[in-house]
């Protein structure tokens, strides 16, 4: 196996790439989120108009994806803080597992709430 493939096969590489891509997606979404909320400056009707526009399956799916990405970035970030500031050494692979576990749980709970 080449060095680069060996690197990509490592769980901490996946933790890195998920953390980076989720952070990037959240950063791109943030200004849109702020602009959407600011429609309330023009009154509740303007905000309602925007919310009606977003009440379609594709937008709901994107919102769901962003909630999952937020959960992944949160847990992956806590892992990094534990590695850098915690009393342990090592790559905290248990927290890589926890990252995907928390992402899955938050995704399922949010999907259930949307469907309720």
């Amino acid at each position, binding site marked *: 196996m080449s060095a680069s493939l060996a690197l990509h096969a490592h769980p901490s590489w996946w933790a890195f790439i998920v953390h980076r891509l989720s952070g990037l997606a959240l950063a791109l979404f943030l200004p849109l989120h702020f602009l959407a909320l600011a429609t309330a400056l023009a009154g509740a009707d303007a905000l309602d108009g925007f919310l009606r526009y977003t009440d379609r399956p594709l937008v709901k799916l994107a919102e769901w994806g962003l*909630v999952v990405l937020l959960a992944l970035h949160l847990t992956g970030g806590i892992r990094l803080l534990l590695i850098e500031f915690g009393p342990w050494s090592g790559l905290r692979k248990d927290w890589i597992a926890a990252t995907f576990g928390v992402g899955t749980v938050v995704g399922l709970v949010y999907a259930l709430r949307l469907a309720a």
Partner: protein
Amino acid sequence: MTGAAVQAKLWYWQRISAMALAVCVVVHLALIVLAARGGLTAADILGRTRGNVGFAVFYAAFVIACTVHVPIGLRTIAQEWLGWRERASSVAALLVAASILVLGLRAVYAVVAA
């Protein structure tokens, strides 16, 4: 300040803001899940947020933590993946920080005080 000193300071602020954001995001995720039930209307949202000082303080702090955290991450990505030089990526990061701060506080104002 040399490049390495800037790097060390940014690393520090990235982590300090991450600690604040960890708390903010847990609360935010809980509110998202609680609020999502049965869809959202403006009346639902504004009924909770208008005149709510606690909400305003919490989300203003959240916006400030994002203002610190997000540009540092984007600056790193611009350098590592796009090959941007330190100066260009730092200027871009400052513009991103200003945008997040202004748009974020404006959004908080919109749902609390407008």
